[in-house]
């Protein structure tokens, strides 16, 4: 049983590296991205500091300044996600193809035993393409998604590609931590 699970961990490390590599070629190394990212980071920090300093005071001119900065930051964040979009499509296609290949390799195979019974809305994932109604059987896709969740984000952080905390905090929903991490 070790071989299947270790293989899946290995597969997800490879796909995570591949995904980051692809994104690096298409996005991270481009001048436009680097410029935008630097700007967003600088602005987020500036905005955060300004909010800290003037948090209590209700000075009108300060408030206006903060609002203007927020608007600028929002625009930059939008541009940044547009730049990222291109690679998200490319990696999305690549991963859909890869995933369907792996899916057919592991089709109907129980790759692991879960030490817990998953809640009902996860059972569709953890018991995908498996026969029988023993819900502690684990399918390939469930383990793969879990691996990817932890490995991809850690690789992004290790390589310094993850958006900084200040930026993701200010950007809110527009600029999630890892777009398309399940692909």
């Amino acid at each position, binding site marked *: 049983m070790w071989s299947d*699970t270790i293989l899946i961990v290995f597969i997800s490390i490879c796909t995570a590296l591949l995904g980051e590599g692809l994104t690096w070629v298409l996005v991270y190394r481009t001048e436009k991205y680097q410029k935008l990212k630097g700007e967003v*980071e600088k602005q987020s920090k500036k905005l955060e500091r300004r909010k800290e300093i003037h948090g209590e005071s209700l000075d009108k001119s300060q408030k206006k300044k903060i609002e203007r900065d927020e608007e600028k930051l929002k625009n930059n964040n939008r541009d940044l996600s547009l730049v990222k979009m291109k690679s998200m499509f490319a990696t999305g296609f690549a991963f859909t193809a890869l995933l369907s290949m792996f899916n057919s390799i592991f089709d109907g195979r129980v790759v692991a035993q879960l*030490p817990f019974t998953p809640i009902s809305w996860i059972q569709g994932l953890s018991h995908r393409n498996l026969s029988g109604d023993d819900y502690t059987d684990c399918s390939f896709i469930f*383990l793969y998604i879990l*691996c990817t969740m932890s490995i991809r984000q850690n690789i992004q952080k290790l390589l*310094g590609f993850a958006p*900084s905390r200040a930026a993701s905090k200010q950007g809110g929903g527009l600029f999630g931590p890892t777009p398309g991490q399940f692909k």
Partner: protein
Amino acid sequence: MSTRTNTIERNSNGSPKSLNLSEICSRALKANSEWPDKDEFLDVIYWARQIFGILLGIVWGIVPLKGFLGLVLFAGISCGIVYIYSINFQGIDEEAYGGAWELVKEGFMTSFAGFLVTWIIFYTGLHYDTIMAEKELS
């Protein structure tokens, strides 16, 4: 504009990272250290959590712990330790980080996923025959 450089930026250009790493580790292990850069402290919590999640996963798998209890125990221990470490050991001001919640949730999902993976792998790998025998019986 700012004289403080971001941790992530620093990490991406190789050499300063290794220099900083040992210094950050020693600060992380010392009680009541100074953390001028908030991101640095959050990074310490993030990475400590990842390692901790994997270790707990291995332990849970070896024991083996089963069911909902394992999940709840992990969440409780993980959040509890982070809270005690930052508030009591490092003595930081939680308000500066936007409340204790921000600290407790830092890197939680990622470490939870890592924990689940190691738990499942070790549980399956070490106890496969026992699990199968139990299933036959029931």
